[in-house]
């Protein structure tokens, strides 16, 4: 049991070390993608976000007018978007296809049409 325990610790340590090295390598070679999305009544720009499967990405949101929301239910992620602040969502799409997103904070006459699509290939 003691040996097993030690071995587990050793393995965990090795994995952590390996991960750290890998992360450093990735950062050095290809900086993680950041996509800026600007919300304004009643539009997201870009309205079409193209992502690669299994590639982590950070979405960065700002709003030009009122409080908005960004909701991408197929990946169970959402954020509020507040005036004067930047909201960030980091995730790794694990499936490909077209997935609708929408503003989920009622923001005015036209709110219903504040939608877009994430396309994962």
């Amino acid at each position, binding site marked *: 049991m003691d040996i097993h325990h030690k071995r587990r610790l050793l393995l965990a340590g090795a994995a952590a070390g390996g991960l750290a090295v890998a992360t450093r390598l990735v950062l050095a070679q290809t900086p993680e993608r950041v996509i800026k999305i600007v919300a304004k009544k009643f539009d997201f720009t870009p309205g079409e976000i193209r992502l690669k499967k299994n590639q982590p990405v950070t979405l960065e949101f700002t709003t030009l007018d009122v409080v908005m929301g960004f*909701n991408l239910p197929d990946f169970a992620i959402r954020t509020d978007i507040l005036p004067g602040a930047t909201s960030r969502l980091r995730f790794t799409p694990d499936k490909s296809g077209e997935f609708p997103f929408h503003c989920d904070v009622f923001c005015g006459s036209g*709110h219903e049409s504040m939608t877009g699509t994430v396309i994962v290939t």
Partner: protein
Amino acid sequence: MKQAHAGAQAISRRSFLRLAGLGGAIYVSGLSGWSSAAALPGGANEDFFFIQLSDTHWGFEGAPNPDAHGTLQKAVAAVNSLEQVPDFIVFTGDLTHTTDDPQERRQRLREFKDIAAGLKVKNVHFMPGEHDASLDHGEAYQEFFGKTHYSFAHKGVNFIVIDNVSDPTGAIGETQLAWLADELRQLPPQARIVVFTHRPLFDLYPQWDWATRDGAKAVELLQAHANVTVFYGHIHQEHHHMTGHIAHHAAKSLIFPLPAPGSQPKRTPLPWDDAYPYRGLGYRQVAAEAAKPMDYQLTELPVLKG
């Protein structure tokens, strides 16, 4: 989540299809073998029926309904001409269409109220939809119609109106959930409970915002009761769904029909068809039988009489 929903939908569709041949009437059955309603003390256990109208969107203009200024009045006339007088009428939200102008919002609520006053039945219950209330947290709505969540009893049935729209994030909120818990605490586990709400309390299709952010919390509170049915609006079409033993029934709209959940890329209104004016629009009669506590007979009725 999507799969669980599809499964539940298939089950409810099967039980509904079995009964769909009855000329527009659908019998909704929940628990069977529960027969002590007649023995409940204090409840006047009589058969009765009420009318559900929804999503009138007064103030809307556009191609999806070229008679946007006349549809609500036609529905009022149709309800008034029912042979049997309903016990009461309920509007499940989106009385008016969104406007960013607070004065215009009040004007629309006023006009809607005037038209609804033409109903012969004066016992009418209102609640807001997100179009009425989300931009000002229900402020203008309350000036005309009072509280946005409340409860009332009718012939042994306890009706609870839940507001999931005055919060612009489409949530019920902790304060109201505490109120709901308190309301339910006062009712025996077998009490007959009917919930009215605007948005679905379950995740019908979150991709189109057809959900309530904290709706699961309300459903969880309601699950403790054996005898709960939910009637809601918002999705502009007839829809039936079970969460556990609780049946949820969405009503048609009186302005334009919306597509079936996920059936097209965007949640755009179904186009008006000149060959079939008012198609997909209508209201609903709900008959409650005292002898069958979980049975409600739903009859969908068209905007135009006959």
